[in-house]
C-alpha cells in the first residue's frame, strides 16, 4: 500500500446502559480483487482487507470475514450496546500482513 491507511470511526461519546447505538467505520483501502490485469496484461495480485473486528472491553461486537467483493474503502455500520464505560477497539487485517487499529472511548450517560 502506497497510501497511508487511516481508519475513520464514528462512536457516540456517551450511551445509556443497555441502549442500542450505531457505529460506522470506513478505511481507505483499494481492495484489489486479484481478478484484474495491468497495462502489460499481467495479473494484479489480490490485496484486500480480509478481516475486520470490533471489540468492547475485550468482548466481541462484530467479526467480519471479507472477500474481494466488498467495495474499495470498506464501510461497515452495525449496532452495539454497553453496560459500563470503556473502549471500543477496531482492527482491520490486510492481506499484506499489516493490521490497522483504532480505539474510541465511550462513557455512560
Amino acid at each position, binding site marked *: 500500500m502506497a497510501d497511508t491507511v487511516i481508519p475513520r470511526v464514528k462512536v457516540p461519546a456517551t450511551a445509556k446502559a443497555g441502549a*442500542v447505538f450505531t457505529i460506522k467505520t470506513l478505511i481507505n483501502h483499494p481492495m484489489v*480483487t486479484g*481478478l484484474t490485469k495491468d497495462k502489460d496484461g499481467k495479473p494484479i495480485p489480490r490485496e484486500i482487507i480480509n478481516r475486520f473486528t470490533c471489540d468492547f*472491553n475485550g468482548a466481541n461486537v462484530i467479526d467480519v470475514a471479507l472477500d474481494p*467483493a*466488498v467495495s474499495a474503502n470498506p464501510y461497515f*455500520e*452495525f449496532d452495539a450496546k454497553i453496560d459500563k464505560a470503556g473502549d471500543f477497539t477496531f482492527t482491520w487485517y490486510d492481506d499484506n500482513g499489516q493490521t490497522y487499529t483504532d480505539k474510541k472511548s465511550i462513557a455512560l450517560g
Partner: protein
Amino acid sequence: MRLSRREVLAVGVGGVALTLIAPGAHASELDDVVAKFTGGAAVGSGGVTVTAPEIAENGNTVPVTVEAPGAVAILLLAPSNPTPAVCTFTFGPAAGSQKAATRIRLAKTQDVTAIAKMADGKFVKAVATVKVTVGGCGG
C-alpha cells in the same frame, strides 16, 4: 484512447470477463461457500432480511444491509459474481443487534443473498434482486 476506454470498462465490470474465462467453475464454488457455512444443513426462510437498492447506480459500490434478529452469523453472497462470497458477519456478545450494513461489488444483475445461522443452529435465507445497469457517465 481505445485502450483507456477499455481500462475504464475493465475497472467497472472487472468480474464479468473472468466469468467468461472460467465457465462452469462457478456453480460449484457457490455450493462450496454455502456448504462451508451451513455444514450441509437445510436452509429455510423467514427471520432474515437483506435490503439493497432495486437498481444500483453503480455496480462497484452497492449499499446492502442484512438483519436477522437472534442470529449468530450472516453470510452475504453475490451468486453471479466471479467469486460469490462477499463477507460473513459474526455477531459477538457486545453486539446491539444482529444487523450490519456494507457496500459491495456486483458484476451484474443478480439475487443478492443472505444466509443466517440462528442461535438454535438452523439456517434461513433471504434474497434481494439488484439490477446492475449499463451506467451513463456518472454525472
